[in-house]
């Protein structure tokens, strides 16, 4: 699905926080929403999910106005916020059972889906989600959110608190998910997502800035540090890859970055 924003202004309690935004999130694919803290990224996600009403403007899919009910999942920044059932198994099958799927089918599909997120069902099915480690909680929350395969997946800081290995494996799952759904991710870890990003929106006052490709955003962010504060190590590592000034920056794959960082040291 292609989600088109048309002058969307998102805010809380009648106060505008972000917008008016006009642009498109073409799907399937992974799109990033980035910006400084307090720029309205989470408010935008909550508006797209139907948790907050749009202050003006709106969104549409094709010719129809966007209605989020039943077609979207939203994973909050704190995974614990999503848990309300005593076991991981019940959490993961909740959305399927709520849609009338028989218990047996829901458990089979839920177990398979949970394993896809790196939590083998035979180990985690009966565990209380609140007793899992930070990374496991995040995976369980993402699995529980996405198990019903919604066409729009909204994720708020899905990599927060994960180590490099955990981030890599979660990114691989998210890339797979983005092959079949429109995935919009709010993140500060932009460098981790860039190789997977089909599009990018920088919010932070007014209309925001849309980029149709992660590479264009990277070029702009390197040229204009005020656009987005890329981490110093990432900026230095990309610079270390070297390029003639008239060419676009080379694509910073993980291996190339590690190699450049090692070479600099």
């Amino acid at each position, binding site marked *: 699905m292609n989600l088109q924003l048309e002058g969307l202004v998102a805010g809380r309690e009648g106060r505008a926080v972000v917008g008016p935004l006009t642009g498109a999130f073409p799907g399937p694919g992974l799109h990033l929403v980035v910006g400084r803290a307090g720029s309205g990224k989470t408010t935008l996600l909550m508006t797209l999910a139907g*948790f907050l009403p749009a202050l003006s403007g709106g969104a549409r899919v094709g010719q129809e106005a966007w209605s989020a009910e039943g077609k979207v*999942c*939203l*994973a*909050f920044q704190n995974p614990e*916020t999503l848990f*309300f059932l005593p076991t991981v198994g019940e959490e993961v099958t909740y959305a399927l059972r*709520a849609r009338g799927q028989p218990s047996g089918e829901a458990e089979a599909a839920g177990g398979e889906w949970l394993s896809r997120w790196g939590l083998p069902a035979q180990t985690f099915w009966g565990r209380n989600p609140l007793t899992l480690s930070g990374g496991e909680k995040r995976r369980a929350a993402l699995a529980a959110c996405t198990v*019903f395969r919604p066409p729009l997946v909204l994720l708020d800081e899905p990599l927060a608190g994960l180590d490099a290995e955990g981030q890599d494996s979660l990114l691989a799952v998210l890339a797979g998910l983005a092959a079949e759904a429109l995935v919009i991710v709010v993140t500060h870890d932009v460098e981790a997502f860039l190789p997977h990003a089909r599009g990018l929106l920088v919010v932070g006052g007014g209309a925001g800035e849309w980029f149709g490709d992660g590479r264009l955003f990277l070029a702009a962010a390197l040229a204009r540090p005020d656009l987005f504060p890329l981490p110093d190590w990432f900026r230095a590592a990309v610079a270390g890859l070297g390029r003639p000034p008239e060419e676009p920056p080379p694509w910073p794959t993980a291996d190339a970055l590690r190699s450049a960082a090692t070479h600099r040291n």
Partner: protein
Amino acid sequence: MRGLTYRPADTFLFRLHPVVKGVGVFAWILWFSLHPWGLEASGLGVALLLVLAWAGGVPVADTIRELKGIVALLVVVALVNLTGEAGASWWRAGDAVARVCGIFLWSAVLVTVSSPAELTFFWEQAFRPLSVFGIDRRELALVMVIGIRFLPVVLAEIERIRMAQAARGAGLGRGAGLVARIRNLLPLLIPTLVLSIHRAGDLALAMEARGYRLSGARTRYHEFRLGTWDLAAAFLLLGVLVGTIWQGHP
């Protein structure tokens, strides 16, 4: 109703003796229930309440906003008074709604101006007659206070679970009819009950870990003494109540 919680301040309402606060609120509840003068008096009572609360440092706008939580009740009360026996009228429905608002708002003011220690003290005194039947008044008082203290927490928990379910594609129920909204509440009840039981267990453990026991005599960290203002407020309230009963049922 998450805003219904103690908000400390240093005004005459907050400084009143806990028993005067509690009895005073119950006197006002009785007044709203018994007075015979119709909508004008109920409206005046609510206005007086709001002025007193405002002068006493209670965040009145926030308190009024809490009325959202009883809108369904107010609608039912109004409908019953509009469609009931002969003589039902908008005037009477308005009176009934104003009385319910008055009772709710006074209860909200009591919770706002009383610390948990003050509420415990008040309930202990209120349950004192039950000691005759061998019932431990301190235990009952503790149950009441924990109930009031944790009401906002439970409501916040319900909201969190509602959000968690909606985050997985369940309906938010906004704009739906009353029946649909009640039906939407059903999936929330079991998780809320289970989490409340867990929370109660955790609270009991925490209290025992800090040495809380009901047995044996206890000293008080906060000593409450009646002052001149307390007596004046008590007599004033007593006068209003007795006058109302006298006028309504001579």
